[in-house]
Structure formats: structure tokens, C-alpha cells
């Protein structure tokens, strides 16, 4: 077997510095992650700006794509929060579009998946929870903390339940960031590993070469699955953002 054959499934996640910037001992270098975030941002902006600039009654390709994303996010949002949730539309739409675009661009071979870095997804999750906390407290004051007091619980159990509710609330950013990060990381590693099997089997020669197409077939199937997961994770991220924002909008249900 091609032991030490140089197929390293983790290598695609390595962060390399493109422009080293280290002012005041802070590492603010422009890395490949930053580069791909800029590419994602440019892609989303291009689609939305070009798509909304034409305003044709019969939409072209890009315009209908932009309208489709808009309507999808809008219906998801109003489905969870109702019409008054539309004030969060720019926030949710930006998150959804960014996550979707970075997941999809990550499927291009040789590209870099921004959302496979836990620091990126964790930053998103912290942003979402901060918005929930700040909006909830500003809008509802101390009434917001009624979220942590479940109703219909006997008095002696209440402190314990409040503690559990608080931990449960704190676990939201963890699970939110972990879900996106884990799915993207695992999917890309699996693709790389199956691709590596093909190379290793062909390199082994003899009878092993005959079964080399088998992992190739699996890699093809996995690619299709990954596209589904790339979309679904963006959707899950958006809908969970809506669910959490709904708690800030109507606490104490």
C-alpha cells in the first residue's frame, strides 16, 4: 500500500498567511481564510446587486436566483416569527447568504471552505446569541429572563430547573457553531479520504487496481450528499437563528 503516500485529508484546512500583518503583537495577517471570505462576500454581493439591478418583470437567471433566495429566507423567517420578525430579515438573510455561499464555494475542488473553521462558525454563533441577548434585554428588560423560568414546576425544583435552563441557553452557541463546523469538516475529510483510496488502490497495482472504481463511485455519491448538506446546513443555521430570535421577540411563552 502507499503508506506515507502524501494524501493528507487534513491538509486542506491549513491556514496559510498570504500577507503577514503583525501590528502591536497581534496577528492580523491576511490568510487564505480571509481571502475566501472576501471571495464569498464578493460573490454574494455580485449576485444580489446584479440580480436586483435589472428589475425585469420576467426575471433572468441571476435575478430569479436572487428572488429565490429572498423569498426562501422571507418565508422561513415569517414561518417562525410571524410578520414582525421581518425586522430581523437583513441579519438572517446576510447570515444565510454568507453560509450558503461559503459552503457552496467550498465544494469547488481546490477551494477553501471558510465554514470548516470553528472560529468562523463560533463567531457567527456568538453574534447570533449576542443579538438575542441584547435585543431581548433592551426590548423586554427583566421580563426577558422569564425565558429561564419554566412554568408548572414545583417550587423546590425551580432553582435546579433555572440552572438547567441557563446551561441549556449557553449551550446554544456551542451546538450552533459545532453543527455547521462539524458537518463541513467531516464531509470534506470523507471526500478526501475516498479520493485517496482511489489513488492508493491504483498505486498498489495488481488485483487492487480492479476494485479502484468502487471508492470512486462512493466519492461521486458523497459529492452529491455534500451539496445537499451544504445547503441544509445553511438552512438549519438560518432557521435556528430565527428560533432563537423568536425567543428574544416573545420571551416567556
Amino acid at each position, binding site marked *: 500500500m502507499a503508506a506515507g503516500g502524501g494524501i493528507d485529508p487534513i491538509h486542506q484546512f491549513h491556514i496559510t498567511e498570504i500577507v503577514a500583518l503583525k501590528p502591536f503583537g497581534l496577528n492580523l495577517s491576511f490568510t487564505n481564510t480571509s481571502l475566501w471570505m472576501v471571495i464569498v462576500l464578493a460573490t454574494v454581493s455580485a449576485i444580489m446587486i446584479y440580480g436586483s439591478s435589472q428589475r425585469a418583470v420576467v426575471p433572468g437567471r441571476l435575478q430569479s436566483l436572487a428572488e429565490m433566495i429572498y423569498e426562501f429566507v422571507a*418565508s*422561513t423567517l*415569517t*414561518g*417562525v*416569527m*410571524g*410578520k414582525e*420578525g421581518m425586522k430581523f430579515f437583513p441579519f438572517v438573510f446576510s447570515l444565510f447568504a454568507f453560509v450558503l455561499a461559503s459552503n457552496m464555494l467550498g465544494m469547488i475542488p481546490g477551494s477553501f471552505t471558510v465554514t470548516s473553521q470553528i472560529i468562523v462558525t463560533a463567531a457567527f454563533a456568538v453574534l447570533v446569541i449576542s443579538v438575542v441577548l441584547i435585543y431581548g434585554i433592551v426590548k423586554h428588560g427583566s421580563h426577558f429572563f422569564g425565558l429561564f423560568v*419554566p*412554568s*408548572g414546576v414545583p417550587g423546590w425544583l425551580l432553582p435546579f430547573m433555572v*440552572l*438547567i*435552563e441557563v*446551561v*441549556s441557553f*449557553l*449551550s*446554544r452557541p*456551542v*451546538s*450552533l457553531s*459545532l*453543527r455547521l463546523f*462539524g*458537518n463541513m469538516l467531516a464531509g470534506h475529510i470523507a471526500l478526501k479520504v475516498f479520493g485517496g483510496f482511489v489513488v492508493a488502490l491504483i498505486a498498489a497495482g495488481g488485483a487492487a487496481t480492479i476494485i479502484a472504481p468502487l471508492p470512486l463511485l462512493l466519492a461521486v455519491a458523497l459529492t452529491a450528499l455534500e451539496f445537499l448538506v451544504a445547503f*441544509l*446546513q445553511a*438552512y*438549519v443555521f438560518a*432557521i*435556528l437563528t*430565527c*428560533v432563537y430570535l*423568536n*425567543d428574544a421577540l*416573545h420571551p416567556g*411563552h
Partner: protein
Amino acid sequence: MTEPDPNASDSELRARLGSLKSAIQRAEANDKPGASPAGEDKALAGAMSSGFRAATDLAGGIIAGALIGYLGDRWLGTSPFLLIAFLVIGTIAGFRSVYRLGSRPTSGSSGGPKAN
């Protein structure tokens, strides 16, 4: 046919009224939280999102509990005890999240009111 015809028959007007009523009902249903225009693919996406949620909510609770316990231990110098306590609490919180997810009606993508 924008102006209603003055000498239109009763049944025509009634049909028009009925169609307008159903349009209003549809618009109102979209206004309410928890109501989602359930499409076929949207239902699948909703179901899969629930699955992803259940899987990671459990892990998220345990990890968040462990993190809180570990940081609390480092802060207060009570080495293993807070970690153990919060690990248990985090696990319970994770299970509670999954239980709450399961106890709420999941039609498509509805977040719905929390079933506490």
C-alpha cells in the same frame, strides 16, 4: 374586468367574494407565527434540520457544561468538583433540549411556541 360589472349576476359576485375571502385567509395564515407554507422539499428540509438539531443539541449541552465547569474550576480553584457537577447539569440540559424538540409539533419548519 377591473370594474365590477353593475349588472353581474348574484352568483358571479358570490364567487368573487369567496375567492377574495380565501385570499385574505391565506394572507392571514402567513402572518401568524408557526404557520409555514409547507412545500414538499421544505418539509424534508425541516425534518432533516430537526435531526441535525437533536444530534448536536445533546453534544452541545455536554460540551457547554464541561466548558463552564472547567472554567469555573480554573477560576475558583476547586479542581474537579465544578467540572463534574456541570458535566452532569450540561448532560441534563442537552437531554432537555432534545426532549423539548421532540415534544413540540414539528410540521415542516415550524419553530412554534415553546412547549414548556
